[in-house]
């Protein structure tokens, strides 16, 4: 970009959600206005700050401060021009300084501290905003020091299982072997989740840096990123980031003269949900069908191609640089119980102000949904909230004061998972949602174990019989037993946790299974 001193810096995200509601057209419109009016514009296609409800969010740098307007549609550009938005002029869509938008200001951003702020494909911008500070710290700490720091931080796997990251890394480090792998799980298939995508589109070098540190900690020179094919924009941005990192000596041999070798291969998934399970993902990375593996052996001991492998989610890996840079103590000071640090929650579905909220564990569902989310998008009453993706429980409004941490949710028969929160209004039919959970499991089961492969098909049939009032009580009993069998007998979380949404739907919304008229009656606007 040949920006002159007088050029106005404008940010318009190149990020899936922003683009899905017109950011490319807005960016083109801004540039067209610039040339039409003879104003020099330096356009930056940043990542998203995660304020999805304000997308496309246009930011203009005025007097060194970023002033936000949003949501901007291409039709708004004429009136924005008339208001002289390039000088920060007043307009109904003006939100003021980005950093002061309460939705953002109230967050506690660690993993997402740069997302939205920087040009995702500018290594200079990355470094100027704290990038590679964690890596430099890691070089000083050495492998043993990194492992201690990660353990002390209390970081647990952000993909959903919540396993302590430091212990996993220690296991890989302690397992003898010439070749070890870092396999990053970017197969973010849970509905209601998009934090991996936001990070890979908005701050891809953070993931690369996290993987470098993991490689240093366990003695691996070879990383893989397994990205779902449903994320074409993340794919193209991350591929560019890998090439830039290679060109500028952050990947390859003798990285930054530190004598460290590490490179990353980017693989695409192919539309299979179960490949987000770590062993199925390893199979897929080996070019095979994504069938679950028996555990043990743990992937940390026998993983990719039989070698010791760190399998971590995008967010887990991308959190490490900031933890090292600011110190494990500061991270561990946040959160509650055994859930330490921050989690990037994702507010989705029927919610007025959806997006990414990174905050310490321990806030309540209500704070998240009401304070940040502002209630439903439709303006109707909330009826159910599903947390943790398609394998997560549905919570009724009576449970909205539940604090968000791993243990509390486990006690309630639910899970935090990857931090996705999907809001449903009072038009939802929960028998239908329970049926969908079983149906989805039937479609996505890898087929290796019977409880999942057959149980899910039977589950759909049993729910249909309950709804049709065929031996209703006996079939409710059968459904519970089927759920028990799936939980106890499945090889992985696919079959093992599909019963979570089903059981919660039966437990809290039994009426929906028993009488369709109840659902229809509650479908009216209650407010």
């Amino acid at each position, binding site marked *: 970009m040949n920006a002159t001193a007088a050029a106005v810096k404008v940010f318009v995200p190149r990020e*899936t*959600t922003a*683009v*899905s*509601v017109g950011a490319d057209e807005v960016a083109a419109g801004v540039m067209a206005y610039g040339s039409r009016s003879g104003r020099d514009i330096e356009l930056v296609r940043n990542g998203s700050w995660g304020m*999805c*409800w304000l*997308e496309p969010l246009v930011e203009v740098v005025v007097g060194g401060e970023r002033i936000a307007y949003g949501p901007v549609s291409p039709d708004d550009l004429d009136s924005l021009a008339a208001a002289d938005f390039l000088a920060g002029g007043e307009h109904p869509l003006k939100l003021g300084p980005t950093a002061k938008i309460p939705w953002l200001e109230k967050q506690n951003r660690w993993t997402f501290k740069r997302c939205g702020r920087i040009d995702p494909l500018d290594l200079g911008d990355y470094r100027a905003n704290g990038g590679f500070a964690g890596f430099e710290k890691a070089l000083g700490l050495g492998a043993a020091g990194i492992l201690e720091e990660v353990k002390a931080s209390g970081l647990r796997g952000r993909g959903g299982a919540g396993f302590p990251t430091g212990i996993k890394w220690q296991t890989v480090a302690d397992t003898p072997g010439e070749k070890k792998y870092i396999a990053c799980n970017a197969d*973010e*298939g*849970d*509905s*209601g*989740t*998009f934090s*991996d*995508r936001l990070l890979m589109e908005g701050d891809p070098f953070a993931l690369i840096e996290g993987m470098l540190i993991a490689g240093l900690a366990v003695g691996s020179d070879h990383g893989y990123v397994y990205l779902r*094919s*449903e*994320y*074409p*924009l993340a794919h193209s941005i991350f591929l560019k980031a890998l090439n830039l990192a290679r060109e500028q000596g952050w990947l390859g041999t003798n990285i930054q003269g530190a004598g460290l070798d590490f490179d990353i291969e980017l*693989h*695409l*998934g*192919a*539309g*299979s*949900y179960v490949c987000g399970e770590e062993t199925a993902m390893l199979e*897929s*990375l*080996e*070019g*095979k*069908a*994504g*069938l679950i593996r028996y555990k043990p052996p743990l992937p940390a001991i026998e993983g990719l*191609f039989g070698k010791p492998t760190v399998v971590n989610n995008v967010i887990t890996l991308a959190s490490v640089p900031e933890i090292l840079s600011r110190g494990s103590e500061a991270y561990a000071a946040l959160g509650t119980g055994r859930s330490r640090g921050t989690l990037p929650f*994702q*507010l*989705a*579905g*029927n919610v007025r102000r*959806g*997006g990414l909220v990174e905050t310490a564990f321990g806030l309540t569902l209500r704070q998240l949904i009401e304070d940040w989310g502002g209630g439903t*998008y439709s303006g109707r009453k909330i009826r159910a909230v*599903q947390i943790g993706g*398609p394998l997560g429980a549905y919570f009724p409004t009576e449970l909205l004061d539940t604090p968000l941490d791993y243990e509390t949710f486990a006690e309630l028969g639910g899970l935090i998972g990857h931090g*996705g929160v*999907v*809001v*449903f*209004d009072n038009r*939802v039919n929960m028998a239908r*949602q329970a049926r*969908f959970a079983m149906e*989805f499991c039937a*479609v*996505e089961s*890898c087929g290796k174990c019977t409880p999942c492969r057959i149980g899910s098909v039977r589950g759909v049939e049993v729910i249909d019989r309950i709804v049709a009032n065929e031996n209703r009580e006996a079939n409710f009993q059968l459904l519970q037993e089927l759920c028990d069998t799936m939980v106890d007998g499945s090889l992985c979380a696919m079959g093992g946790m599909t019963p979570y949404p089903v059981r919660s739907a039966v437990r809290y919304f039994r009426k929906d299974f028993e009488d369709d008229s109840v659902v229809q009656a509650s479908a009216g606007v209650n407010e």
Partner: protein
Amino acid sequence: MPKTYDPSIATEIINGFGARPELLVQILHGFLDRYSYISEAAVRQIAEELNLSRADVHGVVSFYHDFRTTPAGKRVVRICQAEACQSMGSRELTEHAEKVLGIGMGNTTADGEVTLEPVYCLGNCACSPAVMVDHRVYGRVDNERFDRLVQAEGQ
């Protein structure tokens, strides 16, 4: 019209991935990008060049939803069926799409213009319901927007 299968181009795709059997899923993506589906001829040739059995390759093709085995229409329209989009009316949108296009999920219109497919999450869950047309995602798609998308993209 789908591109005619060309064994020399197929070899090029396979060699582009170093003919490494562990890259089979990636190689199949290469075929999908080029031909929009995985043909019998492709399965045969991939098996031969990677020194795998046809059953091995077929097993991988049939496992993954992406690897369709019949040609796609000119455009592939995928409607998200997952929970976040359900909460914003994706079931009704799907019904509308099937009615407007006159086909069910997984099918292609008779004129070969549009293939309609389900997809389970596009990661656009804060601006649901989401639809993907070829490689581009659209958010907050109501019936009217869907009609405009299908028409506009067709020109």
